[in-house]
């Protein structure tokens, strides 16, 4: 078994790609999803979709990197969608960017086959599947990291002495790390102080119009959102409730308690009946904050996609275009030129949200059957799609999302980023993928994922 390396053919100069193709070709939003159907097991397709940058330096105006140029040059006559797979296979054996690693190998590693500065010519670590932790695992380091991250403080001298002063076996150290971790995860620091900071990018609070307003303007109370997030991320609960919860959470005597149904009245409460609820993405704040005054709530759908599936359409991530879209239902010009490449995914992602009010005084965040017709003159009740699946309403949208690989990956990526301040390196990618792919087997519980995260080489390895 030899790994073939090196360039097997001349690469197409980048300048050629830019100068010739720009006149006759454009970026294809179907590219990422089609490519991932071919390469479903590569890192960039596991729980995500290939980034446009895999092939493009720019999508508007379109320019291609060396790999994109090679793929483009290999496209057969039958056109892009029908011929992409053939083209991808045709250039697998090439080293388009000349970095010494074959295109197919780069895709498998998660490096960019079109950028020579992004390469990984090194062997990947070999890890023992039966080991408690990786061979270079440092238990003391793991304890310290666990405590700072989840207890909010370092272990004291005495605690460290109690931890390993008796020179125990690895199994004992392992148990002690996790016992301490359990204490941390039950602490006020983690549950009250740290978890809300993980939620900040999801909730995107604005004090001026939220619960902390100083001038009496409240569009909604985001404290509901923070409580719901804290509740779901603790207590061995199912993290899919971030998108599936039909309940809200109140705090009584320091304890978080779920409550059903409409809460309060008007602004500051929660107006939706359970059948319209979809966790964090149908709170009054989420709808008011993102939909605001829009007829078609594209920003709401985009934020839901970004925050809970990790796909930022504004960064051209997660493009999964629907045939015939965008129909430009509100005559916003989104079917034109560069707009269409993202809106062919975004608009069908958004239709179901049109039934929910944005900022509308006492009706903020309510569900109204006739809202689309009233707010969007050209409303044609087009089909909502998420991840290529047709769905009829936001709860179904959310349920589809919550059971996707993207959601599992994104939740774990959030915890990973919080813990390590970065994403996985190339030689940690497989470990990371195994981590998030274990989420269903860990009963979709955040705490159990954190326990597994602490056991990784990335967290405790002596690197």
């Amino acid at each position, binding site marked *: 078994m030899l790994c073939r390396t090196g360039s097997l053919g001349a690469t197409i100069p980048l300048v050629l790609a830019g100068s010739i193709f720009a006149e006759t070709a454009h970026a294809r939003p179907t590219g990422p999803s089609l490519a991932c159907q071919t390469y479903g097991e590569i890192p960039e397709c596991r729980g995500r979709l290939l980034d446009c940058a895999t092939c493009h330096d*720019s999508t508007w105006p379109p320019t291609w990197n060396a790999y994109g140029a090679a793929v483009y040059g290999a496209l057969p006559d039958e056109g892009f969608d029908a011929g992409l797979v053939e083209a991808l296979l045709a250039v697998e054996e090439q080293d388009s960017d000349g970095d010494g690693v074959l295109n197919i190998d780069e895709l498998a590693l998660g490096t960019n086959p079109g950028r020579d500065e992004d390469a990984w010519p090194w062997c990947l670590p070999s890890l023992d599947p039966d080991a408690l932790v990786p061979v270079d695992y440092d238990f003391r380091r793991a304890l310290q990291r666990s405590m700072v991250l989840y207890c909010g403080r370092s272990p004291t001298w005495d605690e460290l002495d109690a931890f390993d002063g008796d020179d125990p076996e690895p199994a004992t150290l392992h148990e002690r790390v996790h016992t301490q971790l359990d204490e941390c995860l039950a602490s006020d620091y983690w549950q009250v102080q740290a978890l809300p900071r993980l939620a900040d990018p999801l909730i995107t609070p*604005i*004090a*001026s*119009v939220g619960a902390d*307003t*100083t*001038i009496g*303007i409240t569009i909604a109370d985001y404290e509901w959102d923070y409580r719901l997030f804290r509740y779901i991320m603790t207590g061995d609960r199912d993290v899919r409730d971030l998108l599936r919860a039909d309940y809200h959470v109140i705090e009584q005597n320091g304890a978080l308690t779920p409550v059903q149904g409409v809460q309060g009245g008007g602004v500051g409460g929660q107006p939706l009946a359970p059948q319209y609820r979809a966790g964090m993405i149908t709170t009054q704040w989420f709808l008011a904050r993102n939909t*605001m*005054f*829009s007829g078609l709530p594209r*920003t709401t759908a*985009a934020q839901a996609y970004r925050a809970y599936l990790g796909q930022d359409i*504004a960064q051209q991530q997660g493009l999964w275009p629907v045939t015939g879209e965008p129909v430009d239902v509100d005559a916003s*010009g989104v079917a034109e030129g*560069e*707009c269409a490449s993202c809106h062919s995914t975004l608009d069908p992602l958004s239709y179901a949200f049109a039934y929910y009010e944005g*900022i509308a005084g006492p009706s903020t965040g309510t569900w109204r059957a006739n809202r689309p017709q009233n707010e969007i003159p050209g409303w044609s009740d087009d089909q909502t799609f998420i991840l290529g699946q047709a769905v009829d309403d936001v709860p179904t949208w959310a349920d589809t999302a919550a059971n996707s690989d993207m959601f599992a990956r994104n939740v774990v990526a959030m915890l990973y980023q919080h813990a390590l301040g970065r994403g996985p390196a190339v030689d940690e990618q497989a470990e990371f993928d195994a981590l998030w792919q274990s989420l269903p087997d860990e009963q979709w519980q955040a705490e159990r994922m954190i326990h597994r995260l602490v056991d990784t080489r990335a967290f405790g390895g002596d690197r």
Partner: protein
Amino acid sequence: MSLTRRGFLRSTAAAATTLSLPGGLEIVPRAHAGGAGDPPRFLFVVAASGGANIVDGFWPVAQSEVSSAALADTLTVFPDAVIAQPAGSNLRCVTNLGITGLFTTDYDLNTFLTKYYQDMVVVPVENTSVNHAIAQKRAINGAGINRGRTLMEAMATVHDGGLLPNCNLATGGFIEPGDDESLPARARAELIADPLTFAVGTHGTRGLPGAPGEALVQRARAARAELEGASAHGQRYGHSALRQRLLDLQADTVPALEAADLITSLMIVPEELIDLAPFGLQPSPLLDELQAVFPRLLTDPLQMQAGLSFLLARYGVASAVTFGARFTPETSADGLEGTPLAFDFSHTDHVVAQNVMWGRMMNAVDGLITLLQGAPMGEGTMWDHSLVYVATDFGRTRQRPAGQGSFGTGHHLNNGALLVSPLLDGNRVWGGIDPDTLLTYGFDLRTGDPDPGILLREGHIYSLVCQAMGVSFDGQHDMSLLLA
């Protein structure tokens, strides 16, 4: 006793009416340019958060210019009487509409236009996002045209002589870092949350009651440096970029910041507001000058930001400074300043939000330019080397319910950008506007001829600013036609 910032201001605001300064310190200009012989350049990015609509500012359309009165009734046009065009100016503006009540401004855009029309350029732009955060970031990174670097990062990479060449006092997408991982560390933005207290963060120990003297602190720092070399931690993590970054800052940046005495130069807390003497501190020698231009310097967050921005440039700390309006309601001792959500209050009342916020923003820019014009540099002043880019998210929809004067508007990609600088071929609006849609359009970059078939994007504005600032990059648009 511990106070919140707001409480701190409230408790002391009453004292902030008259000020006096101790003897001033000498201003020691630093090198501003990256290369020998390069002229100094200062970029001020003024963040007009929420959607500063150019047709409500310096590119208005009069009712009489619309093809029919009925159509005019449905567009965000203005009565001819409230559109001003000073003598000699090729630009026009919406005057102060005299809005009263909770939201108001005492500044008239005509004041600004009269003073600066020769340096003003309005350029049409068609943005690519109506999402605030995304659009704000694209307004400063040209939608990624320069490997994702923000204007301020690109600027600080070239004009890198200052101690903190890229200072950012803004919020939201305007404080987002660029996406170029190869950016030199020195060019990254130094985020400044509170202009009032920033100065204390430029010295390790001064102002702390009971702190040992300078010589003793230096002994302790020297001991710490020895510890770093001696510790097992240092040896184990010698390859850590994070640790090295901290060590480099300790070794180079901290001494330089302290030696520059920025804790004094940038201190905009007057002794009337709080007695600094017991802490061994004193106000900036330029505080009087600032307060003469910004009467609400100590209580209006925008004026406070503009004032510190000037000081950061004046003392050679930064070559790129960003400040602007925040979504958070900005209050002073006089009450609410501007509108909550800044320009985005247009959702609720477009005319009020745009007129009040345009006035508020340009009042701050006026003060900044006044200060720059009063600061000698070479044979001229700092203003001769400066550019103000009023960056905003996007435009607003141009329709209104027929005949109504109070209405809300949504986000719209179409807009125009305002740039003010002697480095530009000023007193000109580039491109054109359709009076029946109020949509702007572009122009031929070679001839300057307006062309409804041409749209300029964020990358064009980015390229223009870079060219004016002497910053070049691969793939930039040639905007030299707009340069002085």
